[in-house]
């Protein structure tokens, strides 16, 4: 699979190295060239310095031919925008945005953009770990803690 990852933080670099070891074609983009150190010496995929919301950079990363695009920068909005560029401009079949803000994650999920709210998922996992109950299906954590927030946000 050809995958383009935006953001070489802990999550981005981990996905990149793992998928590279699994034999996938991996390209990773980050604004800061220093962050590629996280990839370790064995990573032989492509690295690209640049801003992931810039179409020209995504084109350089050959997003046009990617099977998947994942945005894992620290900025929710940057992730949201870049996946929309990948989806609308480059017709990438699978795009996923990692989003911290649960409300934004669910709002964009409602708009048909695949999102993963790590705040919800890790809170849910921690919750169950504290209580010592067995973990459930991942999907059931995706809106963890959202019931009242959704009301607040005034979903009609």
């Amino acid at each position, binding site marked *: 699979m050809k995958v383009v990852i935006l953001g070489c933080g802990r999550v981005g670099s981990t996905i990149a190295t793992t998928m590279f070891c699994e034999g996938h074609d991996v390209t990773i983009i980050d604004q800061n060239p220093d962050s590629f150190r996280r990839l370790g010496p064995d990573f032989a995929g492509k690295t690209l310095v640049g801003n992931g*919301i810039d*179409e020209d950079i995504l084109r350089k990363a050959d997003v046009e031919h990617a099977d998947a695009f994942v945005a894992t920068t620290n900025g*929710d*909005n940057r992730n*949201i*925008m870049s996946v929309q560029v990948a989806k609308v401009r480059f017709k990438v079949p699978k795009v996923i945005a990692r989003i911290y803000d649960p409300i*934004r994650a669910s*709002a964009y999920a*409602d708009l048909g953009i695949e999102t993963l709210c790590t705040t919800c998922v890790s809170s849910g996992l921690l919750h169950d770990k504290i209580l010592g109950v067995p973990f459930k299906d991942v999907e059931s954590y995706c809106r963890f803690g959202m019931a009242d927030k959704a009301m607040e946000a005034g979903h009609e």
Partner: protein
Amino acid sequence: MSRANPMYVIVVGGGKVGYHLTKTLITEGHEVLLIEKDRKSAEYLTDQLGEVVMAGDGCEVRIMEEAGMRRANVVVAVTGDDEDNLVICQMAKRQFGVPRTLSRVNDPNNEALFLELGIDQTISSTRVIFNLLEQQIESSQVIPLAALKKGEIEVVEADITVNSPVVGKKIGQLDLPPNTLIISVIRDDHATLPHADTKLRDGDSVIALIKAERERELRSVFTGEQL
């Protein structure tokens, strides 16, 4: 100042653009709320503009709710980050049903994308400045049409645009280089034989006979460009 059709406008981003926009909207009698993320900047803006400033992240639903986004007629996103402006407008439109969203676009290449992603209007200062520059370049057009006497004398056409200093002037008032003869003014596709009292207008094309070496001077007369 009160007006018959005041709007409720929410401006997100309290930089220079947001500040002056808010000030102008208040003067024009609209109801405005300016949302600024940075608390310090928000305090300063409150000192300057009064109780129309709200401190908070305009991308967050809780802040949008508090700002009364549901009843806003227009949301204008003018932060320095395109990704923030995009999300503000998309959330305003889809979560709060705001009828009109305007986004500042810092990278002019994002204009088309934003429109495609549902933002109603985009403003790119880069594009605006570029367009003005292009007009300036266009206004400097003095096109050689023909050369007579082995190139010693030229027939040229000067297109008058709105920026040209000769708009509204009579031909007799122009400070033309020596040995220049204006032979025709083309207006609305009709060639006229001009006289000293013919007033030049935006859109006119002036056909002149000049000495080849005077072409630059003539261009300067029609464009206002320094030699």
